[in-house]
């Protein structure tokens, strides 16, 4: 296998991840046709009935039969989720009840007419968005779609049918389909069906046959549907080839770019590029160049729409800045290794282009080097709003501004009338010039041009001799007048441009400053409330609105009460939108595709690690939200999320420090208690031993007996104290495990040595099978546990009777047994013996009843269990079962 053709591991991994993701997602099957009436719904229902016969629980989300009898017959026996009625402008309309479907979670649901637009007020504006949510929830969906509803075919359909389709579905939706079934019919057959009244009923059939269902239309639509299906099949084949590493990553090695602007002509360009890119199997990007020219509200809206169209159709959107659009476009294109650029044909006047150094397309071609440039004509039928775009662009302020300009010129003229007595008429021109420049600072471009012209005329008419005529007597004056006119217009223009640029700069600076202030104030705040308060205040000031912060509760769900820093209180419906944004980790609400009727827009607050909450910003007063405003809001959301996370981390660090502190205190306390208890015991013991050892002979027999009693009692007390301390450690959970590798035989040996004073070693029989590997446990804890069991066994059995210790490995579980031949357990005592301070019914006096509970504590610390039971032959057996790591590896 050659190096090149070996599958790229990253690509394979991506494929596997995609498959895994898809496994969780529902599968989408589209019944695809050229136009209504070809039998898509019929085919879908037939397929559904077949699945139902296979035992699949098929549920109908929504099916439109249009009163067709054959189709209605197929509905029989299929379960239907009732539509949700919603009132709109007095008419009751039924929409698919997506919540009912999500709650029911059928394995397969039918959703007719993918391109349908929902009633305003529904969760999503479009039905295909509902379908996406169903798929995300793991529900398989069958749906139907006509070719003319495809976003990328929209222009073509309009071109040859003359009908503008209102409802479109983005191609990315169809790309997600796991299966596309073409429902095909020849145009003759379809027209026959139409004539038979199988498509539309009554008069509608006749009008339809004359308009949309003309034979040439149908032929064209059919060709388009067939070709689109072929493209999809082709794409699938290429995906398979890519996965198997047949051919290169992109077979064409081409990369396309389309220049996108606020123009209405951009949308057809985008669709065209998508078609070509898919056909060439090439990736494509949409490039927007932001210039210093400010955009009107309408342009901003259209730009946002164009960019989101590009995104929907699968383009990567690239934004760059620069006043030389051609240069910026080429730079971005080179950065993204673009091989072909698509732009629109120039629409501006030839003179203006000459001034700019050529049209955009010609400059691209000149500077493009090896990048191919496609220049597309702007369609005359494109939905442009006006032949005079600048009229709208200026907005309704134009006439007001012009009036202001004229008034201003009149006022200056009056002032100059008096002034010229002392200064002469030449100086008047300078006063006018000043007035025009000042006007350009406040009024729009057209108003300042008007003022320049008006002032020139007024000067000529009223001041230049001969006065009260437009005639100019001397060449000198004529030149003066001409120069004035040109200078005034240019000054007005330049001043205005400087001013607008400054305004834009000011706005940009304002945002940077706001972000900066947000960073500073949140960084300085030590309390979360304070930080959030600052953030909300900045947000409100910048967007002149009110906002709400909802945080995730400890259970990971969104809390329904707003954080106190919020400046507005959400109602139940708003919390619903916020929860949607939180759960799906997507922006929702106003200006989005999800619940766009909401008053506010909701941004999920999240970091790569966790979902922290939702930020809602009230947008009631706004008509649009521009792209950069949205980006700014997203930045705010990211900053606020970072702030919350930082505080959460700080909190947990404080918690950890407190725990550590209390741990330390506790250890000091336990140490001093144990010191205080043990020291006197040690003194008594040492003193008693000393006496027994040295002065025994000097004492009478009774004295010796007393000494012996003291020693015994002291011994008992020592064991009790030690047990109590162990018990305290277990009870407070301060039992750090210190596991190490050892042999079980070693453990048994150590345990029996530990109790050699209480249990004679001859009594202990140890048997450890040789095949038991080394195990990893806390040696000392286990040693003590076994020692306690041995002591207990000795206490419950006759002196000299044997005590057996055995070990066995049982499927990863180490089983240790200590068996005695003593008195055994009383019935029902098997569990009680491990209780604290429980003293066996048959046990001798003495002992605190702690030994066995300590055994249990130590064993449980290893996630094991200890059981007690009677032997059939008498006596009791204690069994410790421990999950262990084992190792046979020699060292």
């Amino acid at each position, binding site marked *: 296998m050659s190096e090149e053709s070996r599958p790229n591991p990253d690509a394979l991994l991506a494929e596997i991840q995609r498959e895994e993701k898809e496994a969780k997602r529902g599968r989408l099957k589209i019944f695809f046709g050229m136009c209504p009436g070809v039998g898509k719904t019929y085919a879908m229902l037939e397929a559904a009935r077949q699945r139902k016969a296979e035992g699949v629980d098929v549920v109908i989300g929504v099916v439109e039969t249009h009163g067709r009898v054959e189709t209605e017959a197929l509905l029989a026996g299929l379960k239907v989720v009732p539509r949700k009625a919603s009132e709109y402008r007095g008419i009751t309309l039924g929409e698919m009840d997506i919540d009912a479907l999500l709650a029911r979670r059928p394995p397969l649901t039918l959703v007719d007419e993918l391109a349908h637009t929902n009633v305003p007020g529904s969760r999503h504006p479009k039905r295909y968005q509902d379908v996406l949510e169903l798929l995300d929830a793991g529900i398989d969906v069958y749906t139907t779609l006509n070719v003319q509803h495809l976003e990328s075919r929209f222009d073509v359909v309009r071109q040859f049918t003359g009908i503008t389709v209102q409802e479109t579905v983005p191609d990315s939706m169809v790309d997600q389909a796991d299966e596309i079934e073409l429902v095909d019919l020849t145009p003759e057959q379809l027209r026959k069906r139409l004539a038979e009244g199988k498509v539309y009923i009554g008069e509608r059939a006749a009008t339809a046959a004359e308009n949309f269902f003309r034979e040439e239309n149908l032929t064209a639509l059919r060709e388009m549907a067939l070709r689109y299906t072929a493209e999809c099949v082709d794409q699938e084949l290429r995906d398979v080839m890519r996965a198997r590493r047949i051919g290169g990553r992109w077979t064409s090695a081409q990369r396309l770019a389309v220049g996108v602007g606020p123009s209405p002509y951009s949308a057809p360009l985008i669709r065209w590029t998508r078609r070509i890119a898919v056909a060439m199997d090439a990736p494509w990007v949409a490039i927007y160049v932001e210039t210093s020219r400010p955009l009107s509200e309408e342009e901003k809206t259209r730009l946002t729409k164009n960019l989101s169209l590009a995104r929907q159709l699968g383009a990567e959107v690239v934004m760059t800045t620069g006043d030389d659009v051609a240069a910026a476009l080429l730079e971005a294109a080179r950065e993204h290794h673009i091989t072909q650029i698509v732009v629109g044909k120039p629409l501006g006047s030839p003179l203006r282009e000459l001034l700019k150094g050529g049209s955009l397309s010609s400059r691209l071609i000149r500077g493009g080097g090896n990048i191919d440039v496609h220049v597309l004509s702007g369609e005359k039928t494109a939905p442009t709003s006006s032949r005079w775009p600048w009229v709208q662009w200026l907005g309704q302020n134009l006439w007001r501004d012009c009036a202001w300009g004229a008034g201003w010129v009149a006022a200056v003229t009056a002032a100059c009338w008096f002034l010229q007595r002392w200064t002469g008429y030449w100086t008047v021109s300078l006063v006018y010039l000043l007035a025009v420049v000042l006007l350009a600072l406040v009024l729009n471009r057209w108003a300042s041009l008007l003022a320049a012209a008006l002032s020139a005329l007024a000067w000529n008419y009223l001041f230049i001799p001969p006065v009260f005529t437009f005639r100019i007597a001397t060449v000198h004056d004529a030149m003066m007048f001409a120069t004035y006119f040109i200078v005034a217009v240019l000054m007005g223009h330049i001043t205005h441009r400087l001013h607008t640029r400054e305004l834009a700069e000011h706005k940009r600076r304002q945002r940077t400053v706001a972000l900066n202030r947000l960073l500073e104030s949140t960084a300085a705040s030590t309390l979360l409330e304070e930080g959030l308060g600052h953030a909300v205040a900045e947000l409100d000031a910048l967007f002149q609105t009110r906002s709400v912060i909802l945080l995730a509760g400890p259970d990971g769900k969104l809390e329904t009460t707003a954080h106190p820093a919020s400046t507005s209180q959400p109602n139940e419906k708003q919390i619903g939108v916020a929860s949607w944004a939180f759960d799906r980790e997507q922006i929702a609400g106003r200006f989005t595709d999800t619940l766009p009727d909401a008053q506010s827009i909701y941004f999920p607050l999240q970091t790569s690690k966790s979902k922290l909450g939702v930020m809602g910003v009230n947008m009631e007063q706004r008509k649009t939200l521009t792209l950069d405003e949205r980006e700014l809001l997203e930045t705010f959301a990211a900053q606020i999320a970072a702030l919350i996370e930082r505080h959460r981390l700080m909190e947990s660090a404080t918690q950890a420090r407190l725990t550590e502190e209390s741990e330390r205190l506790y250890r000091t306390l336990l140490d001093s208690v144990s*010191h205080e208890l043990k020291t*006197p*015991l*040690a*003194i008594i013991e*040492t*003193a008693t031993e*000393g006496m027994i050892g040295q002065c025994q002979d000097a004492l009478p027999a009774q004295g010796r007996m007393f000494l012996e009693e003291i020693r015994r009692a002291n011994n008992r007390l*020592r064991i009790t104290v030690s047990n109590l301390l162990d018990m305290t450690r277990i009870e407070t959970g301060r039992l750090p495990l210190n596991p190490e590798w050892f042999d079980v035989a*070693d453990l048994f040996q150590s345990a029996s040595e530990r109790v050699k004073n209480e249990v004679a070693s001859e009594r202990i029989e140890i048997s450890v099978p040789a095949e038991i590997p080394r195990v990893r446990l806390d040696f000392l804890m286990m040693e003590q546990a076994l020692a306690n069991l041995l002591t207990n066994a000795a206490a419950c059995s006759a002196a000299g009777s044997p005590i057996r210790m055995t070990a066995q490995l049982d499927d990863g579980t180490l089983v240790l047994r200590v068996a005695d031949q003593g008195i055994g357990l009383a019935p029902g005592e098997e569990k009680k013996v491990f209780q604290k301070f429980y003293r066996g019914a048959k046990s001798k006096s003495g002992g605190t009843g702690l030994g066995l509970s300590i055994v249990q504590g130590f064993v449980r610390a290893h996630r094991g269990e200890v059981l007690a039971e009677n032997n059939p032959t008498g006596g009791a057996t204690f069994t410790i079962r421990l999950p262990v790591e084992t190792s046979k590896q020699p060292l």
Partner: protein
Amino acid sequence: MKPNPTVLIIDDERAIRRLLCAALEPQYQVCEAENGQLGLQEAVARRPDAIILDLGLPDMDGVAVLKRLREWSQTPVLVLSVRDREADKVAALDNGADDYLTKPFGTAELLARLRVIQRRAPGGAEEPVHVIGLLQVDLAAHQVKVHGREVSLTATEFALLRVLVQHTGKVVTHKHLLRTVWGPNAEEQSQYLRVYFTHLRKKLETEATGRLIQNEPGIGYRLLAAD
């Protein structure tokens, strides 16, 4: 006649000091200190032959006293404390204590341990041949004999035995053994020790010798001195 060796007792418990005095008096000269500061002063002034040190002192921790002491003195130190957690014992031993005894203690045991640590006090020339009961180890010739019969040991086993022999009667911590035999990177690998000591004991211990190497769980190993 050589004067009796001097023992310094550093313990805040008067009763303990008095008992220790009573136990030690016949064979030792005893001096006392009731806190760490005084103890260090006494150690400088009296130059004792051995020190018995309590860990729970009122003014400073016993381990701190040990560290200060070890800055200038190699006087053998026996730690005597009620703290019975392994971590405490290891901390004391790793900071220069020669042995560790938990209160309550038997007088006989105390005297035996004291004798051991004194015997191993520095100053005496390093003997190549050590005889511990029936065990005979020639450190120079790498030769080990039990009951007169030669035993062959692997290099690692011998290295371990050498460390124990050099500290006969005293407990040697896991960390010390690992660092000396395997190097500083192996300090946490106490499972090596279990395996090697199992082998070593199989080779050295017979019925006649009885137990030679004692395991102090969680702390270390001790080559039992033949008394």
